């Protein structure tokens, strides 16, 4: 008779068992803010297509302190998402060889973050210029 009886452990609450998994879940969770913000911008586009009154009403709604609070929260969440996104990026792409040398993980993450920062600042400057 076979006396083996392999014991399979439960996966309940797996993501709480290791700080790395907690961070992963936060990263995945912040994606919801990215989606939510895309929805907000799309709503704006729809409002714009509905005429000036609708557009103005939408702009006014955005000035609600709750909405501004949400924007700040979304900014933090999306910034964190951006950081963790580029942090994992070197693991997800084929090796980049520059001058016979393989580009280091930090060079890839660093350039990703630099491009994201430059794009954000550029956009900010553009919108700032248009608003003045």
């Amino acid at each position, binding site marked *: 008779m076979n*006396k083996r009886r392999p*014991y*399979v*452990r439960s996966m309940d609450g*797996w993501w709480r068992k290791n700080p790395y998994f907690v961070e992963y879940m936060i990263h995945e969770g912040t994606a919801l803010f990215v989606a939510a913000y895309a929805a907000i911008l799309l709503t704006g586009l729809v409002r714009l297509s509905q005429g000036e009154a609708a557009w103005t009403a939408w702009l006014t709604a955005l000035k609600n302190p709750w909405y501004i609070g949400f924007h700040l929260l979304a900014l933090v969440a999306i910034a964190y998402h951006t950081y963790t996104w580029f942090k994992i990026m*070197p*693991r997800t792409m*084929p090796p980049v060889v520059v001058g016979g040398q393989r580009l280091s993980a930090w060079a890839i993450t660093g350039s990703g973050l630099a491009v994201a920062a430059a794009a954000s600042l550029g956009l900010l400057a553009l919108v700032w210029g248009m608003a003045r």
Partner: protein
Amino acid sequence: MSEHQKTIEIEVLRYNPETDKEPHRQVFEVPFTDDMSVLQGVQYIKDYLDGSLSFRWSCRMAICGSCGMMINGEPNLSCQTFLRDYYPARVRVEALAHFPIERDLVIGMEGFIEKLESIQPYIIPKEARTLAQGEYLQTPEQLNAYEQFSSCINCLLCYAACPQFGLNSSFVGPAAIALLHRYNVDSRDGGKAERMELVNAEEGVFNCTAVGYCSEVCPKHVDPANAVNQNKTNSAMDYFLRFLAPKGGAK
């Protein structure tokens, strides 16, 4: 044990399939010196405190890949994890996560062995070559393409670090896919089309959600997450290319 002998507590997850319904914890007090690995700690338990404690080990120098355990909840080779990094606190040792426990710290590895066989981990020559024709030649660049992925010692820490494998044990998983990639990118190999079927399959690369912890815990810097994620791209290419070239790509 002299009066001045320092000791450390090691808490071990025990499981004997013949007598236990489920695993339980047992604490041992082990003499402590600051050059002791966790493996030496559990060896002390087996030698002098409880001979029935079972665990795998062999080389004691991070080469054989036998002694992987969860140490304070993190997968690591117990031979390269030192008790001094935990002293004077208690160290918690368990069998590698996500695998069935066979006995104490010993996990069942049949599932992994089957996966390893399924990826055809050997060179399937592009073109047959007789002995008289001599060896296959390879440039340093061609070697570089796969060398990192050939360093795997099958210690299974990456599987214990992969929640997706824990949730779905049919996922081929990090180490096996890393080795699959190692052969697919070898310039001497012509078996890619066969192996891509497994990459594309239900149990293939798309189980991975890029947690990345597998590469974090790998003691040989194989970066299995990279192999898995490169093959997501390869799989997508494979899928779209078959519309362009009816004879190309996997079935």
